[in-house]
C-alpha cells in the first residue's frame, strides 16, 4: 500500500477535473452563507451587543475595571486549572473509550443497540441529578463504601471522593465517553478490516498493524471526539461546581459569578472573551491537523466489517468493554432508578412518586403534567435536530468543498478561500461561549422587530441549535472527507446532475454519520438546562427544568418526584435513541 502516492494522484486529478463537478463546489459561497447568516444573527450579533455594552456602557471604551484581571494571580490560576483538568479529562475519556469504540465497530453481539442507547443517556442528565447519583454510589455512605467497609471489616469508609479532583474527572468521563464511542466507533465500523489483515499477513505484529494502518485512518475521528470532549470539559460548569465543591473553579464558573452575583460585566466579558479566543485558537490548530490527516477511503458496509465474537479472546474483549461501560455509565443511572422506586417506603419498591407526577393537589398554575414536559422537551429536541442537521449538512458540505484541495495533502491550505478556512473554527465558537454571556446578549440584542425574540420559545431552539451544530459538523465531516473523488467523478461522467451526485454518492456514505450527528443534536437539546434556564420564557418547561423545580424545595415527595422525572427523562431518551437508530432512508442507513 502506498497511500501517499495514491493520494497525490487523486489530488492532481481532482485539481484538473473535479472543479465544477461537485454541486457543492459549484456554490461554496451559497452553502457557506446559510449557516453563516444563522451564526451572525443568533451568535455574533448578540455577543457583540453584550460585549459592547460591557466594555463601553457609556459609548466609549473603558478598560479600567479590568485591572482586577491582572491584579491577582487568581484568574491566571483559574485559567490554568481550567485548561489542565480539561486536558486530563480528555486523555482519560479517549483512553477508556477507544477500546469500547473498537468493540462496537468490529463486533455484533446481543443487546448491542440497547447498550449503545444506554451509554448516550448520561449526556442528557442534569448535573445535580448526576451528583446525587454519584453520592448514592460513591459517597461516604454510598453503596461502594458500605460494601467495602463490611467486606473488609473497616471502621471508616475507605474512599473519600467527595469534592475531589478525582470525582470531577470521573464525571467528565461519565458525560463524554459516548462522544468518543460514537464518533470514533462510526468511523471505525466503516474501515475495511482487510487493510489490517493485509498488514498482518505481511508480517506486522498486531500492534504494528493497528498503529500503521488503522490508527492513521482513525485519527480525524479521534481528533474530532477529543476536541469536543476537551471543549466540554474546558467550559464545564455544573460538574465542577457541584461535584468538585467550592475549591475548584473554571473560567465558566467565574463568568457566572461575576455576571450574576456582582454584575461586573466588564470583567465577565473579558473572561468570556478569553474563553472564546482560546477555543478559537484550539480550533484553528485542530482544523489544520485534521485537514492534513484526512484521506479518502474506501468505506465498507457494516455487514462486511462486523461479526459475532467467535474465539474466547474476542468474547473476553467484548465482555470486558461492555462491563466497563455498564460499571462506569449505567450503574449511576441504575442507582437513580432504584432510589426513585424505594425512597418512599421502608422496604420494597413503590411507584408512588410516579403516580404523584400526575397529580396536582395544590392546583398549582405551574404544575407540569409529565406528558406536557415530555412533549415540550421532545418538541424542542426535534426542532433542534432538524435545524442543526440542515445547517450542519450545508456547513460540512461547504467545508468539504475540495475545489481548493483539502484532500490533496501535497498542496497548501492557502488555496482555500479565507472565509471557508475560518468557517470551521467559527462554527465551533458557540461551544466555547458562556451561556450566561450569550443569554444576556439575547436580552440586549433581540429586542426589536423583526427579531423581537426575547420571550419567544423559538429562542430555546436557536440556543440549542448553536450548541448542537458543532456536533453535527464534527460527526459528518470526517465521513464526507473520506469519500473518494472518483466516485463523484464517475457519477458526473455518467451525466448525473450535481444534486443527484450528492444524493446518490455522498448521502449514502455519510448517512450513518448524519444519524450520529442527529442523535447528538437530539441529546443536547433534551438535556440542555443552562441556556434554557437563562431565557425568559412563558410557561413551557422542559423535563430538566421540571426536575430542577422539584429539587428546589424540601420534602421527600419533591425529591422523589425529581428522581421519577429523571427516570422518565432517561426512558424517553433511550426510546428516542433507539428510534433514531432504526431510522433509515431506504438503503441509505445501511452503511
Amino acid at each position, binding site marked *: 500500500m502506498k497511500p501517499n502516492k495514491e493520494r497525490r494522484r487523486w489530488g492532481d486529478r481532482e485539481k484538473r477535473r473535479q472543479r465544477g463537478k461537485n454541486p*457543492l463546489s459549484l456554490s461554496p459561497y*451559497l*452553502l457557506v*452563507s446559510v449557516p453563516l*447568516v444563522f451564526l*451572525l*444573527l443568533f451568535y455574533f450579533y448578540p455577543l*457583540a*451587543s453584550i460585549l459592547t455594552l460591557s466594555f463601553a456602557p457609556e459609548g466609549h471604551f473603558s478598560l479600567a475595571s479590568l485591572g482586577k484581571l491582572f491584579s491577582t494571580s487568581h484568574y491566571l490560576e483559574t485559567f490554568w486549572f481550567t485548561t489542565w483538568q480539561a486536558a486530563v479529562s480528555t486523555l482519560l475519556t479517549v483512553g477508556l473509550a477507544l477500546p469500547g469504540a473498537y468493540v462496537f465497530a468490529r463486533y455484533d453481539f446481543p443487546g448491542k443497540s440497547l447498550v449503545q442507547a444506554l451509554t448516550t443517556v448520561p449526556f442528557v442528565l442534569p448535573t445535580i441529578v448526576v*451528583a*446525587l447519583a454519584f*453520592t448514592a454510589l460513591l*459517597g461516604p*455512605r454510598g453503596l461502594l463504601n458500605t460494601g467495602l467497609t463490611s467486606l473488609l471489616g473497616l471502621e471508616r469508609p475507605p474512599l473519600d471522593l467527595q469534592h475531589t479532583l478525582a470525582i470531577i474527572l470521573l464525571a467528565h468521563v461519565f458525560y463524554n465517553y459516548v462522544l468518543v464511542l460514537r464518533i470514533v466507533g462510526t468511523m471505525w465500523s466503516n474501515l475495511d478490516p482487510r487493510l489490517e489483515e493485509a498488514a498482518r499477513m505481511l508480517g506486522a505484529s498486531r500492534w504494528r498493524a493497528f498503529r500503521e494502518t488503522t490508527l492513521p485512518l482513525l485519527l480525524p475521528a479521534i481528533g474530532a471526539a477529543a476536541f469536543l470532549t476537551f471543549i466540554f470539559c474546558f467550559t464545564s460548569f455544573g460538574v465542577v461546581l*457541584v461535584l468538585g*465543591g*467550592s*475549591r475548584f473553579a473554571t473560567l465558566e*464558573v467565574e463568568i457566572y459569578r461575576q455576571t*450574576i*452575583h456582582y*454584575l461586573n460585566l466588564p470583567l465577565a466579558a473579558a473572561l468570556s472573551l478569553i474563553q472564546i479566543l482560546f477555543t478559537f485558537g484550539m480550533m484553528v490548530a485542530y482544523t489544520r491537523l485534521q485537514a492534513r490527516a484526512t484521506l479518502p477511503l474506501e468505506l465498507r458496509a457494516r455487514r462486511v466489517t462486523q461479526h459475532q465474537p467467535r474465539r474466547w479472546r474476542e468474547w473476553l474483549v467484548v465482555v470486558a468493554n461492555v462491563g466497563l461501560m455498564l460499571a462506569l455509565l449505567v450503574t449511576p443511572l441504575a442507582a437513580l432508578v432504584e432510589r426513585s422506586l424505594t425512597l418512599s417506603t421502608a422496604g420494597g419498591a413503590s411507584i408512588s412518586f410516579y403516580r404523584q407526577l400526575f397529580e396536582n393537589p*395544590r392546583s*398549582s*398554575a*405551574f404544575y407540569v403534567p409529565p406528558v*406536557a414536559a415530555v412533549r*415540550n422537551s421532545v*418538541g424542542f429536541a*426535534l*426542532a433542534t435536530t*432538524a*435545524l442543526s442537521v*440542515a445547517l450542519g*449538512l450545508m456547513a460540512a458540505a461547504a467545508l468539504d468543498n475540495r475545489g481548493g484541495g483539502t484532500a490533496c495533502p501535497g498542496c497548501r491550505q492557502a488555496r482555500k478561500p479565507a472565509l471557508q478556512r475560518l468557517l470551521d473554527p467559527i462554527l465551533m465558537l458557540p461551544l466555547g461561549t458562556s451561556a450566561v454571556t450569550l*443569554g*444576556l446578549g439575547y*436580552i*440586549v*440584542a433581540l*429586542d*426589536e422587530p*423583526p427579531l423581537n425574540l*426575547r*420571550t419567544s*420559545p*423559538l429562542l430555546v431552539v436557536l440556543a440549542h441549535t448553536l450548541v448542537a451544530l458543532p456536533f453535527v459538523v464534527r460527526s459528518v465531516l470526517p465521513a464526507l472527507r473520506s469519500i473518494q473523488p472518483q466516485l463523484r467523478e464517475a457519477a458526473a461522467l455518467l451525466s448525473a446532475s450535481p*444534486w443527484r451526485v450528492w444524493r446518490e454518492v455522498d448521502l449514502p456514505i455519510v448517512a450513518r454519520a448524519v444519524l450520529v450527528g442527529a442523535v447528538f443534536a437530539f441529546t443536547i437539546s433534551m438535556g440542555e438546562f443552562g441556556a434554557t*434556564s*437563562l*431565557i*425568559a420564557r*412563558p410557561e*413551557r418547561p422542559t423535563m430538566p*427544568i421540571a426536575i430542577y*423545580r422539584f429539587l428546589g*424545595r*424540601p*420534602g421527600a*415527595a419533591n425529591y422523589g418526584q425529581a428522581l421519577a422525572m429523571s427516570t422518565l427523562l432517561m426512558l424517553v431518551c433511550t426510546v428516542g435513541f433507539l428510534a433514531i437508530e432504526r431510522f433509515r432512508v431506504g438503503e441509505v442507513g445501511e452503511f
Partner: protein
Amino acid sequence: MKRIIMIALIGLLALTACGPGPAAPTVTPVPTTPPDTPTPVPSAPRQVRVMTHDSFDISEETIAAFEEQHDATVEILQAGDAGVVLNQAILSVDNPLADVLYGVDSTLLSRALDAGIFEPYESPVLAEIPDRLELDDQHRALPVDYGNVCLNYDKGWFAAQGLAPPANLEDLVKPEYKGLTVVENAATSSPGLAFLLATIGHFGETGDYTYLDYWADLRDNDVLVTEGWEDAYWGQFTYGSGGEGERPIVVSYASSPPVEVYFAEEPFDEAPTAAVVSDGSCFRQIEFVGILRGAQNRELAEAWVDFMLGTIFQKDIPLHMFMFPANEQAALPEVFAKFAVVPEHPAEVDYAAIEANREAWIEAWTETVLR
C-alpha cells in the same frame, strides 16, 4: 448603531434567501406543542406581563381570580434565579421585557433601586403590611413575602446520638459538633449568602471576634461547603438524603420543617427537622414586587401589584412558595400555623450595605473558608 447592524444582517439574510440556494431543506423550527394552560390568549386586548424567578408558583384559582376581576390575562415569564432575573431587567431597562418584576430580595434590593428599573407606586394595600418589611420609603419595591434562612437539624439523628441539638450559631464551633454542619457557598448560592449575612449581622465586622473569626473556627470544626442548597439538602443532610448524607445540620429555611411535614409520605405528629431561631442566628429575606419603568399598561400593572399584596394572593403563598405572606391579614395554612417557627429577632444587616460590600464580604469569606 444597533439598528444599522440589524439592517445589514437582515439584508444579508434576504440576499441569501433570494439566491438559488443549495437544495438542503430549510427548516422552520416551529415548536410542535400547542400552548398549555394557563397561557394567555395572545389576542387579548389587556395583558399584564410579570417577570420572575423559577421558584415562583401560585394556584390556578388565584390567577383566574385576577383575570376575571380585571378582564385581563397574566403572562408569567420565568428565567433562572432572582439574580438572573434582576440582571435581565437591568440590561433591558430601556425596553423592558415585562410590566412588573417580582422576586427581587433584600440582598439584591439596592442593586435594583440603583439601576432605576422601578417606578414608585404607593399601593393602598401597603396599609395592611407591617412597616418593618418595607425597606424602600419611595415605594418602588413593595414587600410581598419573607422567609428566614436558618440552621436546620435532623431531630432523629440528635435523639439517637443523645446529643443536644444546636441552639445558636456559637454551638457550631464547639468540639462536640465537629463535622456535623453543611453550609452553601456564599459565592454561588442565595441561602449561602444569606447565612453569611446572618453571621455578619451577629458577630459584626469589627471587635474581638468578627464574623471571619467565626468562619475560621467553623472551618477548623470541619464545616462542609456545597455549591447550592440542593446538594446540601438532598446530598449531605442526613434527613434530606434519606441516610446517605453525613451532616445532621444544614443551612436551610425556617419554613423547611413544616414543608417536610407537608410533603412527607406518611403523616407526622411533629416535624422531623427543626430550625434554630435564636436571636441573631437567622437572616430574613424579603421578596419585593415593583412596576418596571416603561411598563406598557401602568393601570393594569398597579392592579396586579395590589392583587399580589391582597389576601387572595397572600394566603396562597405559603404552600406554593414556602414563604410567609407579608400581609398579616392573610391566614396561614394549618401546617404552617402548627409547625412553623418565625424567628423574632433575625440578624440585622443594612440592605444598602449589602450591595456595597457584597463582593468584599464574599471574597473575604472565600479566602477564609475555602482557600
